[in-house]
């Protein structure tokens, strides 16, 4: 067992102890009565957990909405118990680390429900089982509902981000931002759904729960469709990278390496997450236009003649043309068009100079040149990293942006990249 695994187990153990302690205290302080409706709600929550959608190692489902409704109906103890029990079937069906996963999910869900439930009760939220809210009471339930949602979301996202961070080695903030910020609007809407579910169950009984099945499935489909959309984007990029690599086997892995370098430079230059994501995509697709160029030219072992060079120079235009009609790639067109521009205006494309060239394209240019020089080509052997950095510095201010070259040189000096980075997953993570 390595130290990361040990830390993970310790964390899960601590969460479990905390959850069981708080659950015991809550059941003692606020006992509940078992009812058919409570069992049915637990079953629906368990079902929604079984059909949860996995994305970036995290399951997304509407379980918390069902459990919030249970809390609003029966109180924190019933809500927490229903929530915890709802996770058991899905944990049994997991393919790996069933026990660890099961313990964590039970404890985490229980803690989320307890925290949310106590927040709801603490600010005067009324339990509505058997006595549905009347119109005049609704304004009074808004604050408790907001607090329940906020506290549940915060505890849930923090605990899940922590466990993913511990198991993957990624930073906690990075995991949280990439995995949870997009869910905030959906979580807010689910809070309204939870209130509606609680109210209808309170007024109509268990039949009300039946009426909610389809809306709950539709709400769950939101996550499913979002994930499907992201996967389609990733698939598109992956197939285009395959097109590039099929064309020129010598550049196999080139796009991924350039993407990795560009992302690092972008982060060091203070790019936003969104901008980093876009530069990664641009780097993956920057050579797409080479699909239109014959291998006789791409793989030529001797220097290119003028005509052949003219053909090569067309690849940014062709690449831009191929992607311009794709909505989620169209904003990369200026970057791909300009990635062979030089800051002194002597590059190819529109002979832009200095800051006329998009910053992303200047970053890409440095990363592209570095990888080209450090890779073996049919007509020359790979250069060493030191020589390549010297070459980049020699051309800084003419071919390359000086600031970017220095940023990248500093990253390399600090050991930012191992000699042979394994970047197979870059395309997946890019979108």
């Amino acid at each position: 067992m390595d130290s990361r695994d040990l830390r993970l187990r310790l964390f899960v153990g601590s969460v479990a102890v905390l959850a069981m302690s708080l659950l015991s205290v809550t059941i003692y302080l606020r006992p509940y009565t078992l009812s058919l409706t409570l069992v049915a709600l637990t079953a629906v929550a368990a079902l929604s957990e079984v059909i949860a959608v996995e994305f970036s190692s995290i399951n997304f489902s509407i379980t918390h909405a069902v459990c919030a409704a249970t809390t609003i109906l029966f109180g924190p103890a019933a809500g927490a118990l229903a929530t915890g029990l709802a996770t058991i079937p899905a944990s049994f069906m997991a393919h790996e680390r069933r026990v660890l996963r099961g313990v964590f999910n039970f404890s985490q869900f229980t803690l989320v429900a307890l925290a949310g439930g106590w927040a709801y009760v603490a600010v005067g939220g009324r339990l509505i089982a058997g006595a549905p809210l009347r119109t005049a009471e609704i304004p009074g339930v808004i604050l408790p509902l907001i607090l329940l949602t906020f506290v549940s979301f915060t505890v849930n996202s923090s605990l899940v981000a922590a466990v993913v961070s511990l198991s993957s080695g990624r930073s906690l903030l990075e995991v949280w931002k990439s995995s949870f910020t997009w869910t905030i609007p959906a979580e807010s809407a689910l809070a309204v759904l939870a209130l509606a579910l609680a109210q209808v169950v309170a007024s109509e009984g268990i039949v009300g729960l039946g009426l909610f099945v389809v809306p709950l499935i539709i709400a769950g489909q939101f996550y499913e469709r979002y994930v499907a959309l992201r996967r389609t984007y990733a698939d598109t990029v992956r197939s285009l990278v395959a097109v590039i690599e099929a064309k020129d086997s010598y550049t196999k892995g080139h796009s991924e390496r350039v993407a990795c370098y560009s992302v690092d430079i972008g982060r060091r230059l203070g790019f936003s997450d969104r901008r980093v994501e876009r530069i990664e995509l641009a780097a993956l697709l920057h050579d797409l236009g080479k699909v239109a160029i014959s291998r006789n030219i791409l793989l030529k072992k001797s220097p290119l003649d003028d005509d052949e060079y003219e053909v090569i120079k067309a690849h940014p235009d062709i690449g831009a043309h191929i992607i311009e009609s794709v909505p989620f790639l169209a904003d990369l067109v200026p970057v791909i068009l300009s990635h062979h521009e030089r800051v002194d205006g002597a590059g190819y494309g529109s002979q832009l100079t200095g800051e006329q060239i998009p910053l992303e394209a200047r970053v890409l240019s440095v990363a592209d040149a570095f990888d080209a020089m450090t890779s073996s080509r049919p007509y020359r052997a790979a250069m060493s990293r030191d020589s390549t950095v010297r070459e980049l510095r020699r051309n800084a201010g003419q071919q390359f942006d000086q600031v970017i070259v220095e940023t990248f040189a500093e990253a390399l000096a600090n050991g930012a990249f191992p000699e042979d980075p394994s970047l197979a997953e870059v395309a997946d993570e890019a979108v």
Partner: protein
Amino acid sequence: MKRSRSVALVELALLLVSVGLALRLPVAAFAWPDLLWFVAGLTILKLSDVWLPRGDTVGMSSALALGALLLFDVRVVLVMLLLAGMLALVPKGRNRMWRAALGALAAEGVSVVVCAALLVPLGLHPSMGLLLRSGHALRPEQYLFVVLVGLLFAGLEFGLLQIEIAVGNGQPVRASLLGSLSYGGWLIAAQASVGVLAALMYRTMGVWGLAVSVVMILVMRQSFVLLLEIRQAYNATIDVLIRAMEAQSPGREGVAERNAELCTAVGRETGLHGHALERLRYAALLLGVGSLETDPECDADASVLAGGPARIVEGVEFLSDVVPVLRLCDSPRETTHARRSDLACSYTVMAVGVATNTVGHEQMLLVRERVSPRVVREIDRALAAVLDSDSARTATPGVMGAL
């Protein structure tokens, strides 16, 4: 233009007949604030209609219209729909919107009146509305009635709109309806459920219940928008691969689209719809995608081709059922196990390819010998019919399939 005007006239006539029928139904009481709140809710939802790429709309207000039908007098509901439709047009204010609004109003109006008329013999209207507002819980069989009415309402409204779109676009109504149903089935169930829930929540929570219902419908809308985005992303993926193929071989420009158009028409002629028709279209569009791994000017391609002609799209999840068809088209003899539907799909693509001189006759024969003679005859007959008719030029996939 003429067809569009005819459809509008039919819609107007349907609406007038609905109003006439509504006037003959029993009267139920209502309060003005109810009308105003529902008009506000319906207006918000009508402003949130989802516009499809070809200019058609998917309305989001049906669920609330159903809720209103379960609560109020049918004439009040018609007035609500009319007012909300007009109010929603004010910020939109473009000519095309009037047509869409009329279509939606006709579909909703007809559905409202038909459902209300069906309820009268059952003694459920207007007494049902009064019952829902009385504060007493419903009996189990009444819940069942209410849900059935909801399904009838949502199904009728969805069907009428799909027929309108199909007729407006000159598509076969049956295939379009069936194709759309495979995508819109959930929407019907959701509209029915949310409509009933809206009525139940309005009964206990008043205007707050209405607000909660509107939020639920907007969540549903967002989910539907995501579905559209997914379909647009599918099309974008195909489009970008076609562009890459055309960049490599400029002589192929427009070939994939033309073949796909013909294949879709042939598929329809043979009774395909929904996913099966879409799969055929994708296979036609991507026939030859393996050429991206080859180079016409380079003689060292044999080793690259060994990877399989459809390798580039193998990892693309939504094309997973198209890959076997592409494999069959490219290497019919090497592909030992093939489903009958894959074989039929491959033969359609190859036969159309031969008809447009983009596929070699011998390559097509290799596929043909693996397909049953009955299927071959059917596809050949359909292809001949399509090539003979002008409809091939205007053929487009199902209303939802073409998103």
